[in-house]
């Protein structure tokens, strides 16, 4: 290109002899063609990019769509992250009982999953960690009538062996102690607020965490004396964290609803899966993870 530029510059009609002139006549043409090509290329790229933007993406769990479409009897279950272990177990049991079915799980934050369903994610069953997140789905007309299938209570999580000698909920009001809570915007934080309000305790937290995992991490690293999380989370955190039950927790028992989705391509299998979750076998798997029966 540099040479082309130089020849452009050298074109000075008065001085040019015949030979260079002929050469130069072709130069502007090729430059023009090149420019046109560039414009074309740019336009092409722009169109491609815009097309990519415009395609309505279905924000489904990427792993789910293939399974549900390939197998004639496959279903996709969207479930709250806290259900990961128990639902994987339940899924295995269900598949063992119904060999021709496959279940694909997608676990995540209930709020995120609810948004995905409302946006049209192809799924068959939704198990939410709170009635509120289920409500956004039923309000959008995307789910059938939900059923509460388990409940979960808060526990005080402390580092292994309770080295800072936490005795109860009132320790949370001690400013000299390091306390982690979930932010009120997320479910475990909302439950904590409810418990503190009903117990008339003003907590002095040092951090308001984004989610249960982050909260538990602070406990596991012994950076906080105590945190408020769900009983199932304490169990899932393994041996670095101990849980302390406290009576005030009764004020904020959280129920998990499950529902089949209207978009389901296999409503019969979806219904069978929900029934299996509600069956004694399914409830036993959930109890193993620390869930209690729904309090109705």
């Amino acid at each position: 290109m540099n040479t082309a530029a130089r020849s452009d510059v050298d074109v000075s009609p008065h001085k040019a002899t015949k030979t260079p002139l002929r050469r130069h006549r072709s130069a502007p043409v090729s430059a023009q063609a090149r420019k046109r090509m560039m414009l074309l290329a740019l336009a092409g790229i722009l169109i491609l990019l815009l097309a990519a933007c415009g395609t309505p993406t279905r924000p489904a769990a990427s792993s789910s769509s293939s399974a549900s479409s390939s197998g004639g009897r496959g279903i996709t279950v969207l479930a709250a992250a806290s259900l990961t272990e128990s639902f994987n177990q339940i899924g295995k049991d269900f598949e063992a009982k119904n060999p021709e079915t496959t279940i694909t799980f997608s676990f995540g934050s209930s709020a995120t999953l609810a948004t995905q369903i409302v946006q049209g994610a192809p799924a068959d069953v939704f198990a939410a960690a709170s009635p509120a997140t289920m409500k956004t789905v039923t309000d959008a007309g995307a789910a059938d009538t939900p059923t509460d299938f388990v409940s979960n209570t808060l526990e005080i999580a402390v580092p292994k062996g309770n080295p800072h000698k936490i005795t109860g909920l009132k320790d949370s009001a001690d400013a000299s102690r390091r306390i982690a809570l979930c932010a009120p915007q997320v479910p475990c934080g909302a439950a904590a607020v409810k418990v503190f309000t009903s117990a008339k305790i003003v907590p002095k937290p040092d951090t308001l965490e984004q989610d249960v995992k982050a909260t538990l991490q602070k406990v596991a690293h012994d950076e906080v004396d105590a945190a408020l999380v769900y009983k199932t989370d304490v169990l899932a955190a393994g041996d670095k964290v101990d849980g302390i039950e406290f009576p005030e927790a009764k004020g904020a028992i959280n129920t998990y609803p499950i529902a089949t989705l209207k978009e389901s391509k296999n409503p019969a299998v979806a219904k069978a899966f929900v029934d299996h979750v509600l069956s004694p076998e399914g409830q036993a798997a959930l109890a193993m993870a620390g869930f209690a029966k729904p309090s109705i």
Partner: protein
Amino acid sequence: MPAGTTPKAKRVGHPQVTVRPWQSRVPLLLAVPATVALLFLLLPLVGLVIRAPWADAGAVLTSAGALQALRLSMITATVSVIIVVLIGVPLAWVLARPGLRGAALLRALITIPLVLPPVVGGVALFTVLGRSGLLGRPLYELTGFAFPFTPYAVILAQVFVALPFLVLSVEGALRAADRRYEEAAATLGARPVTVFRRITLPLIGPGIAAGAVLAWARALGEFGATITFAGSFPGTTRTMPLEVYLALETDPGSALLLSVLLLGVSVAVLALLRERWVTRW
């Protein structure tokens, strides 16, 4: 610096020719990928701006939480960059010295924070500076002070992730700089400190500035290490990215607005600074 190349490009001898630099000097081979790169970087930004619910902008952007987070972000990122420059430039200088043993290994180690997922970086900081960390435990037992959940922890996390950006770009500048000026100064009797201050620093000024900009931007956007090591408490440790992430959980619209606010402020700051550098260097 791009500013230095423009005067040479002008062709003084041909006053009648008006060659516009863009048309004649950017070959297709470069123009196309450059445009792709630019669009790739800008289009998500455009999407963000288009999707943000501007009707709520007033309420969201002036909310106490947003302003508090923005203020904390600006202060911590700026303090972090000052620390980064103070300790990063000397490190880069050591790295760029010819004949340094194990320089390759050292350079690889320095890039670790770039490779490490920031959340893991936060855990790594716990293991050293946390209440039960290697250095943190004696500190806590002696003074009762621990870094986590304080603004100092935010700064530590930001310094940790931002330092490599400055070190690598300053080292690059040092390698590109002409060593002969330093040698000449030394042979004329200048002591090493004087050579560094009077010759090296001015030579690599643009490199330091570029590195500091990268580091500042990285510190401002720091999320993973901060939320892990510093926690998230309004006014103390909840920086803008943490505020955005939390808002995403409940109100995605306001999260978009907050992101746009953070981007707007940072672009404004960088544009203003850039203006000053171009005139200085």
